[in-house]
């Protein structure tokens, strides 16, 4: 479970985020809901890049049964951000990503949370075993297990 004492070293993949004008709300900082869009985008980009996931044609897709976020300090357009990812738990059909949002150049997170994917058949929407290529990618950023080979920066 991510907490506020963590740093970039606790995450094994980073996806860049360019904030947009309309991400800021009346407070002048990024609206809470927009963090979920950053995470949704980062997680799927990871699956595309590392797991060979094709969102247009893949017979197995990931859908989200639960997401959570703690907002620790505000971020605002036009800052550049990064979403840090790691895998906390992998089951037969589901994975729990642990995530943190970092400001450019900062070591401690502006927000931490988690995001769960359950992989389902695209047509029936019933849970299925995580495809091998995706499982291998997820194992590569997992907290537990010996699959990681120390190449994560």
């Amino acid at each position, binding site marked *: 479970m991510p907490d*506020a004492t963590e740093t970039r070293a606790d995450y094994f993949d980073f996806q860049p985020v360019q904030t947009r004008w309309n991400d800021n709300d009346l407070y002048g900082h990024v609206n809470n809901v927009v963090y*979920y869009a950053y995470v949704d985008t980062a997680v799927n980009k990871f699956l595309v890049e590392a797991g060979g996931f094709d969102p*247009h044609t893949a017979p197995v897709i990931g859908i989200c049964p639960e997401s959570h976020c703690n907002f620790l300090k505000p971020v605002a357009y036009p800052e550049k951000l990064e979403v840090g990812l790691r895998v906390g738990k992998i089951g037969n059909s589901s994975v729990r990503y642990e995530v943190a949002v970092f400001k450019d150049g900062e070591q401690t997170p502006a927000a931490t949370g988690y995001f769960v994917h359950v992989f389902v058949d695209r047509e029936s929407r019933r849970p299925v075993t995580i495809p091998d290529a995706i499982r291998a990618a997820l194992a590569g950023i997992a907290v537990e297990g010996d699959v990681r080979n120390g190449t994560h920066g």
Partner: protein
Amino acid sequence: MGEAAVKSAGAPLSGPIAEYPYRIEIATRWGDNDMLGHLNNVVYNRCIEDIVTKFTRFELDVDWLKDDCYPVTVETLCRFHKQLSWPDPVLAGLTVQSLGNSSVTYAIGLFGEDVLSPAATGTFVHVYIDRVSQRPVPIPIAVRNRLEKIVLSRAAE
């Protein structure tokens, strides 16, 4: 904000729309659906925020632009149980889950046609802060009185 952020908001409710004393209908839009043909998960969170902010504005009479203190969001959670999709409207319900000195936790349910079984449930934590110091302050008494009414009516059920 840090003090409130380390607390856990607790589990959402799981019952029918009748559990939630404040309700609104939210229209969906074409662009709310993602390429999987259902409301994107982020949009569920937007619906949750919508009912919390409308409740805060219209039932608690909080004015974000003028009041000396106002709420900021420190923690949110959403559990997705069923698919919702455009063009169906979403029925949202809200109740007060718990009330602290400077924080309030709401429980929210989102429903489609079936108002007995939620499509999504969530929690949302507001902390009231001073406009100038940006530090947590006690919830203003007028706001607290309104929130307590809901807590008391829940306890009486």
